[in-house]
């Protein structure tokens, strides 16, 4: 009889898979109470490291052509499709039926392709050439906000994660995602997909642990530009929004009942993490 080899789940920062610097862990259990895996209980320091990593590559990531970013998102979809079986297994461990697990994975693949397609199009949608009353060529176009911290929803282990990451990074932002505590295995496995998809290290960073512990530090962090939270308690939401005012972070509070449905995808989610820049240029001789 062969003994299966179990996987060590670690966090994803700057293109590497370290353990949490705190050495802490939590036990992820299935409904029967059996241990699925030990997961990193990420700390404030892990968050800060992740933000440094995200900031470090943001400029370079934003500078890649839209075509290139689109192909990278498409590549993530290719990699995810190829690892469908692994994700279905992990979702079944979390209590999903085989059918629901498959839907969760396939819709996540399609979501990535959806946003891959937007990469070289959202600019065409959200830009304008403005007919100002004077001899000026005047145009407005979106540019990425910067570093975004996202809190993954608790009702969509993979589709929620993907539906947040894709619109954030396709717009040239980098991000730190705080995975849902009860689906950390899927989040870490998705980091492995990202890692093999030509996504530069640091563009996406994924932490496992307790949202209520990590997120308040993110909303206070002075080098974060935006926070996307999904399903916080009223109290925590107010506190995050209040702290966001410290450096005028953009706050997005959007959640969906079913993240696999098409209403959880939209170019306006890309726009949430964009600034509009207007340029004036004289016309003359």
């Amino acid at each position: 009889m062969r003994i299966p080899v179990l996987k060590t789940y670690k966090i994803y920062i700057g293109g590497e898979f370290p353990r949490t610097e705190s050495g802490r862990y939590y036990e992820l259990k299935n409904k029967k109470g059996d241990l699925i895996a030990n997961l990193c209980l990420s700390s404030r320091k892990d968050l800060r490291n992740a933000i440094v990593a995200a900031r470090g590559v943001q400029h370079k990531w934003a500078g890649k052509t839209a075509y290139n970013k689109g192909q990278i998102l498409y590549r993530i979809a290719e990699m995810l499709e190829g690892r469908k079986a692994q994700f279905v297994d992990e979702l079944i461990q979390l209590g999903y039926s085989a059918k629901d697990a498959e839907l969760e994975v396939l819709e996540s693949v399609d979501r990535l392709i959806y946003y891959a397609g937007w990469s070289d199009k959202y600019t065409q949608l959200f830009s304008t050439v403005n007919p100002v009353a004077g001899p000026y060529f005047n145009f407005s176009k979106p540019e990425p906000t910067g570093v975004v911290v996202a809190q993954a929803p608790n009702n969509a282990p993979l589709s929620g994660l993907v539906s947040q990451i894709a619109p954030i990074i396709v717009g040239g932002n980098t991000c730190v995602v705080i995975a849902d505590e009860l689906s950390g295995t899927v989040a870490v496995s998705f980091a492995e997909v990202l890692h093999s998809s030509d996504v530069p290290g640091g563009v996406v960073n994924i932490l496992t642990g307790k949202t209520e512990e990590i997120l308040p530090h993110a909303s206070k962090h002075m080098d974060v530009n935006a926070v996307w939270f999904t399903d916080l308690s009223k109290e925590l939401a107010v506190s995050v929004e209040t702290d966001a005012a410290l450096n005028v972070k953009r706050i997005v509070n959007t959640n969906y009942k079913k993240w696999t449905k098409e209403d959880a995808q939209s170019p306006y989610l890309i726009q949430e993490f964009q600034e509009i820049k207007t340029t004036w240029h004289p016309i003359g001789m």
Partner: protein
Amino acid sequence: MAHSNEMGAPLDFKGLWQYDAAPEDKSQVKIAPRYNHFINGKFVEPDSGEYFDTISPSTEEKLSEIALANENDVDKAVKAARKAQKDWAKLPGKERGKYLFRIARLMQERARAFSVIESMDGGKPIRESRDVDVPLAAAHFFYYAGWADKLEYAYPGKKASPKGVAGQIIPWNFPLLMAAWKLAPALATGNTVVLKPAETTPLTSMFLAELIRDAGIPDGVVNIVNGMGATGAALVNHPDINKIAFTGSTPVGKFIQKALAGRDVSYTLELGGKAANIIFEDAPIDQAVEGIINGIFFNQGHVCCAGSRLFVQESVANEVMRKLKYRIDTLVVGDPLDKNTDIGAINSKKQLDKINELIQAGIDEGGQVYKANVSTPDKGFWCAPTLFTEVSQAHRIVNEEIFGPVLTIQTFRTPDEAIKKANNTAFGLSGGVWTDKGAKIFNVTSQLRAGVIWANTYNKFDPTSPFGGYKESGMGREGGLHGLTPYVNLD
């Protein structure tokens, strides 16, 4: 402020400098001895029973023979497209998009083979087919794949539905790229297609047919038939076509527009050009000279948007002329498969004859000719880069599209004069402006009557960027958001 290089002698490329041959390997490429029509997902023999040869313009060797489509073949292809159209349009946009992404990916995978075949069949330098034609063709599919499920954002408040069956006729100067420009937006929006490649360059389209089959695109969605003008006419005149997309010469475009008069068939035409490339005295001259070279000699000048009329401000005319002559003497004309080659073979004997006729007309009408001091191979069809000065707006070579490596050069004193001369043409496809002054760029570009203007660059293309002409250079746009419009009905 004269720089020593400006006054010095030109570099002697013929003496000490010699390039070793650096040919691209063609052993990986398998060209079949014969290609049939691609109709309803299968390669079928022609009703006519006839085949025509496709040759390499650089060696004059036969590469393969191609089925010739008569009216019956065209009819079969249109019927296959019609039969497939309903289901193709019914497919959810995101699934249709996935098929197009597959085409893009397969094309990237087979990119080198496509480039080698393109250069063998059409004569263009491998550097261009490898770095421009093929990657751009794949990029077009990638771009329009993404639109397939997003049309509600392209036309807010309207429902976009496909036109139906599109007949698409493409030219020989960018065979695969033009196929991509035509197919990608048509397929993304739910149309099915009958494509007719040009008779001198059918091979990459046949490789594309194999790719489309391998991508699992449903039968009949893309059909490809080959032939001469009569085949194209059969497609245009077919009673069950909803749309014609044509890229080619202005005379044929006019013929198509006439043929479609009174019929419920929409059409887009991307026709000839005679672009003005305007160099102001405040331009970065060395950069402008490179831009002039790229503008007119890219793809042997077989480019509808070629910068074939150069306008130079008088104060810098001598400097530009001197540098231009030095520069064209260094161009490498020869084997399209050689990576050193700047200018490959003229696409066909017929085209070479036309170019030579116009060069002679230029000389007869009093133009001063300067032919680059370059060597050309013995076999094949070649034309050395050619400059003409002492020409006026009245000369044939200034008015007619030559579609070869021939540049006419005129001077001007004021911006107004440049703009007037530039617009004094029946064409209006493209133009170039060279100046360091941004304000002047926007002033001049806004006054030029042409569909694409490059400022301090030339011959740039991108799937996100619309392309097409004013006036007799055609109607409709290909590329970008605007490139979707010709293929949809809006309700």
